[in-house]
């Protein structure tokens, strides 16, 4: 039994050691593991100032302008926003109010040239009629709160 206890301790200590090591590595690389930056981070200078990076946020309602394959829209994190220019095919889930991630370069203070647009999907799944019902009840609640 002594030998077995030794091995048990070895496994537990080993696992704890590896966990700490991995935790340290992940903490050190935290910045590089970020898949995208928000417009606020970009405007605060926390994103790369040049080169290709990814920007994530929500497509502002009514901001989508299409001209053939060229699309312009406003990407917002509800605090700050940036204007995105993109030429190409958009994913199915791209629509106003949707979370998207764009990859490209910053060309002006608040202008971004995207080479790729990815739609981010939320965790919600429901049938269309339920979604419509939910929207109606939310609108009714908002109205009730205002009056």
């Amino acid at each position, binding site marked *: 039994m002594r030998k077995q206890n030794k091995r048990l301790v070895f*496994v537990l200590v080993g696992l704890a050691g590896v966990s700490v090591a991995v935790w340290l590595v992940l903490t050190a690389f935290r910045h590089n593991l970020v*898949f995208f930056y928000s417009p606020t981070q970009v405007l605060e200078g926390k994103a790369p100032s040049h080169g290709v990076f990814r920007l994530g946020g929500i497509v502002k309602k009514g901001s989508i302008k299409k001209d053939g394959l060229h699309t312009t829209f406003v990407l917002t994190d509800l605090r700050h926003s940036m204007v995105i220019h993109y030429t190409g095919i958009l994913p199915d*889930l791209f629509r106003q109010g949707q979370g998207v991630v764009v990859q490209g370069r910053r060309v002006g203070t608040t202008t971004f040239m995207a080479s790729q647009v*990815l739609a981010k*999907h939320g965790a919600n*799944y*429901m049938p269309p009629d339920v979604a419509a019902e939910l929207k109606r009840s939310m609108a009714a609640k908002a109205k009730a709160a205002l009056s």
Partner: protein
Amino acid sequence: MKLVHKYAAPKRFYELAGTLTPWFATLTTLLFVSGLYLGLYWAPPDYQQGNAYRIMFIHVPNAWMSMMAYMIMALFAAAGYIWNIRLADILAKVTAPLGASFTLTALVTGSLWGKPMWGTYWVWDARLTSELVLFFLYVGYMALQASIDDARRAAHASAILAIVGVVNIPIIHYSVYWWHTLHQPASLTLTSQPKIYITMLIPLIVMSIGFMFFYLTMLCVRARNEILWRERRADWVRKLVESRP
């Protein structure tokens, strides 16, 4: 401990698994057939994705099972390593290819869904990358098992790899919360209301239980096979073979 050793005798497990296999297989078939019927016909389309979301009935159970199988494999590997239980070594070894196929299925189905929905087959975000690492862990474990001839030494060496790899499991799970990822966070958690409508949730649960029983079925079949091979020189195996016409 003596009790474990008695019931974990490969011969006993061989008989037990033989009795359980048809039951597990029947349950798996029933759950898969009803789950697919519910998922593909009965469940309504999604308000945003239309019918494309239905791939989740395969993707999500496989992704869950890829992590669950890894935990099972690592626990068996650790038990085999610490207490020298031969059956635990066997169960860990035969779980690896099953877990690897769950992982690959989750990666491929996710990728096929990602193209129309996200607009890309693959991105190197934390969730996708950590799941890919899980696949390589399984493959590495299998390669290590295969590269050492002596069964006990193979089990001990690969057990270390399996145990170290456990670190990846919480990373996969929490990746969507710790970092900005393209992959969405979990729709189902133990602590909050499901974010999936009930008529879509039911097929998902049925399919998930189906995949669990599929795993158990395959575990029994594969473990029996492995036991026969390892005990091929034992008397009881010889008698078993001779008793077959």
